[in-house]
């Protein structure tokens, strides 16, 4: 009796299991083929993508630091900042890479990313170029989600505002062995500073100005050590 029942159970179960395993086998086969195709395309495109990313980076580098000022390859001369206090000034939670430009081994300038974390809608990523003497050589917005038509005037294509950073410096003073920014010019005109605000959007320029100011403070704090 018992064996009889088991055998009937087996025969009713078998086709179901067969179907299940068949489906699982086929599904894994399809997934495998998809993965192989993707790996192949990835392998084929990876060098080109890396090349394009490098080119795109160099293009923005040239905008914040004139290539005539240096003769090394900043992409290969980097310093990675991991110190928490420094990263706080740069608005980043991840380590920041500093690209160092030199003219015949002498410091010419640095290029790095900083993030304004208090934009009107999310973070604003900036690329900042600073000459060896602490003067700003250029700032560009790499990424933002500010309102089109209002806050997006921080883009070079939309307005000249971002160019007004060029040639600026930051005055600092020492207090309790700490370097502190002491420069009322670094604010929008509405707040008594020297920078224009946009009609209908003061939060965006305020955020960008504060981010650049903090980045300059970081550069002054580090000074020569950035090039070592």
């Amino acid at each position: 009796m018992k064996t009889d029942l088991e055998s009937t159970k087996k025969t009713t179960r078998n086709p179901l299991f067969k179907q299940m395993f068949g489906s699982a086998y086929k599904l894994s086969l399809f997934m495998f083929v998809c993965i192989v195709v993707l790996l192949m395309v990835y392998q084929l495109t990876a060098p080109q993508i890396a090349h394009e990313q490098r080119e795109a980076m160099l293009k923005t580098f040239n905008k914040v630091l004139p290539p005539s000022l240096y003769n090394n390859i900043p992409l290969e001369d980097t310093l990675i900042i991991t110190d928490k206090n420094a990263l706080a000034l740069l608005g980043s939670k991840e380590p920041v890479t500093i690209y160092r430009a030199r003219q015949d081994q002498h410091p010419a300038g640095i290029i790095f990313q900083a993030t304004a974390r208090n934009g009107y809608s999310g973070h604003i990523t900036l690329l900042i170029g600073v000459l060896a003497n602490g003067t700003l050589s250029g700032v560009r917005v790499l990424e933002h989600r500010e309102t089109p038509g209002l806050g997006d005037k921080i883009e070079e294509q939309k307005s000249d505002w971002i160019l007004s950073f060029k040639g600026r410096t930051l005055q600092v003073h020492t207090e309790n062995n700490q370097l502190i920014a002491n420069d009322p010019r670094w604010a929008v005109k509405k707040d008594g500073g020297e920078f224009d605000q946009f009609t209908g959007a003061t939060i965006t320029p305020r955020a960008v100005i504060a981010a650049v100011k903090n980045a300059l403070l970081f550069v002054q704090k580090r000074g020569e050590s950035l090039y070592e």
Partner: protein
Amino acid sequence: MSNATETTTETTTLSDAPPTRWQEYQKIMDNGLWKNNQALVALLGLCPLLAVSNNVVNGLSLGLATLTVLLMSNGLISLIRHHVSSDIRIPVFVAIIATAVTVIDLLMNAYLHTLHGILGIFIPLIVTNCAILGRAEAYASKNTLDKALVDGFFMGLGFMVVLVLLGAMREMIGNGTLFDHIHMLFGDIALNWTIHFSDDYQGVLLAILPPGAFIGLGLLIALKNAMDLKKQNKQQNALGIPVQVSPKTEVTN
């Protein structure tokens, strides 16, 4: 892109084919471009449609990418339709679509890098465009390769045309330009293709922002319905039957 070659091979097969097949293709074309237009009638794929249609170049490039994905997924799914049982078909379709999208994403990243940067997340998001899974499930998995390819091509083309039209409307009203940044798609020869309508046009923000996409799409749907209604009335008049407006078209008007 490969679209150009696809079109030419398709047209040659079309002219060689017997009339019944030709009529079949014509029906598919009519469905894809007009009667069952994925964007205007089926209202599928609205997320990328509304988000990326703020200028012609974005619309055109996302349209081209979607069209290529549709061609690839329809073709592949039609090829394997006899080998996939119905209980695993959806995961298999999804895997094929995701693979096609990732391939396009990688290729665009490699060869149209700046454009890829601008379209950003919307290229991978083609995966979620219901129009693609919809065509796979409703058409490609039940039809022969040639029909599935023609269907994919015209469904994609219909979607692309709407994206470009909406992009043109929003760019003209919102920005006062047409074909801005087109060199990112066609290279340096296209540097002077941008049309500026006025030098000191301030732009209408509403058209660029998301509401502009909804309003624009609404206007396009209304236009299509009005054209359908006109055609319907004309046909009825030719037959000598008094014009009757169906309740459906009344509502849409």
